[in-house]
């Protein structure tokens, strides 16, 4: 995964550049894969490594929330938290943000460990591998400042 700051900034830049609506929902969609999979996995992984053993389903059971099928399900369920009038737009903006997230992550190289794009129907793992997994660190702050600037230039956020 790229860092969440870069993911969020990329989402703001893309959506603002396209002059699209529902920017906050799109950004939410782009951070949800890590929020629902990596954050609990890293937190419980820390407990497992440094405190007390944790069952592997608790440290790795969140992974499907970072794969396409799990993300579609997540977007579908999340959209039901919103009013019916905007539900379809919310769903597609969440999906768009999630697709951007996966697209950015797939650029990375994990030295042979790719992303299980077809899970649970296939164990095919793939990534493009054109940049290191920490390559976005240098971009995060400048990209965030640029995103903030571009967003502020927009008259209407929704």
């Amino acid at each position, binding site marked *: 995964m790229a*860092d*969440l*700051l*870069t*993911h*969020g900034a990329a989402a703001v830049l893309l959506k603002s550049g396209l002059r699209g609506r*529902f920017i*906050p*929902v799109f*950004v939410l969609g782009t*951070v949800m894969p*890590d*929020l629902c999979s990596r*954050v609990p996995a*890293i937190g419980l*992984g820390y407990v*497992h*490594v440094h405190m007390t*053993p944790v069952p*592997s389903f608790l*440290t*790795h059971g969140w992974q499907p929330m970072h794969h396409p099928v799990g993300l579609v399900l997540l977007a579908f369920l999340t959209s039901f*938290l*919103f*009013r019916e009038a*905007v539900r379809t737009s919310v769903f597609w903006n969440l999906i768009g943000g999630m697709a951007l997230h996966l697209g950015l992550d797939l650029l990375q190289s*994990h*030295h*042979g*460990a790719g992303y299980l794009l077809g899970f649970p129907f296939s164990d095919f793992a793939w990534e493009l591998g054109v940049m290191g*997994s*920490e390559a*976005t*660190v240098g971009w*995060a*702050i400048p990209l965030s400042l640029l995103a903030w600037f571009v967003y502020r230039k927009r008259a209407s*956020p*929704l």
Partner: protein
Amino acid sequence: MLFPLWEVTHIRDASVYEISKTMRGVAVEGSSAGLTVGDTVTVKGTFRSSDQAVVETERIDHPMRRVKGLLSIIGLLLGAGLWPRFFGWEAGRVVLRG
């Protein structure tokens, strides 16, 4: 065998160190030069059953991993702080603001 993004949790000596993630304290036979406890590494190697150790064939260090984690935490805090600006809760539903 591939151990992507595992944490160095113990350095036994100059030629053996331990990494942890899914499993705790996996012994890796390979140079520990330049490593400190808490570092993140990707290890490629083969398994040796006699002493249940991984014999390292390649090690990739990830020195920027902590900075990356810090950036993600900043992103999370920023998102949490901005949440009320863009989202609210009315009549049992999330509403969009702004």
